């Protein structure tokens, strides 16, 4: 539960990237994070943005679990980043405060969780 300036900032950033790519005549579409068919966390891991946490959320260096994720698919010839490693220090603090999870990297739909305790306690 938080303010929405960060949220609007994410929308602004995505819009600006789309406009920039379109101005260079590349196709670019925003990936809807609300779709259950697409995992922005998985995309973040594959893109080298961060690493999977024990709660299957994205740990980003310097930001912990506090990031808002957005993704764009484009045909622009981008240079790939390497996958991130060693970001999560495996302290398991996020797991310990989670009210609905007690097994690390458990599968299943936990999208209804919104308490934010893990975000606040992550030391990364």
């Amino acid at each position, binding site marked *: 539960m*938080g303010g*929405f300036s960060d949220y*609007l900032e994410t929308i602004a950033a995505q819009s600006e990237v789309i406009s920039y790519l379109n101005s260079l005549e590349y196709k670019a579409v*925003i990936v809807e994070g609300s779709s259950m068919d697409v995992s*922005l966390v998985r995309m973040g891991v594959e893109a080298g943005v961060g690493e999977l946490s024990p709660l299957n959320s994205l740990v980003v260096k310097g930001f912990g679990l506090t990031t808002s994720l957005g993704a764009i698919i484009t045909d622009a010839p981008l240079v790939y980043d390497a996958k991130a490693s060693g970001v999560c220090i495996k302290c398991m603090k996020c797991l310990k405060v989670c009210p609905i999870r007690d097994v690390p990297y458990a599968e299943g739909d936990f999208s209804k969780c919104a308490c934010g305790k893990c975000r606040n306690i992550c030391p990364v």
Partner: protein
Amino acid sequence: MDKKIIEIFMVKETADNQSSLRGGGCNCKCDCNASQSLTICKLVERFSKKYDSVGDFKIYELTSINKKEYISRLNKVLLDSGERLVVGESNLDFVLSKTAPLIAVDGKIISVKNYPDVEQLYNAIITGKKIPMKSSCC
């Protein structure tokens, strides 16, 4: 206290979400001219009934004929709220899918993608605090 101007930016809801509406018009007598926005209409109606002296509503519902005016007013509200998001025709659908209904009081955003109840809206107006977004996991 001066009466506040409460602006609500919204889009038409899908057919699935308006089963209780007939005749294509808002039938809650709130005079908002919103054709398919029962939930916001109810908020407006109930708020006006309880806190009539607190504020007047302006409802902006996007149509094919008011797009420029809609974008212009939305950008003014975003700018006055200190946000760097700029809306244009190219990203309007995307932005609205992420933000509507967007509520502003005296030109400053107080709620995004949320349907507050009457008391939440009243408290936000009185205290000047933003209404928290309903969070979801990504």
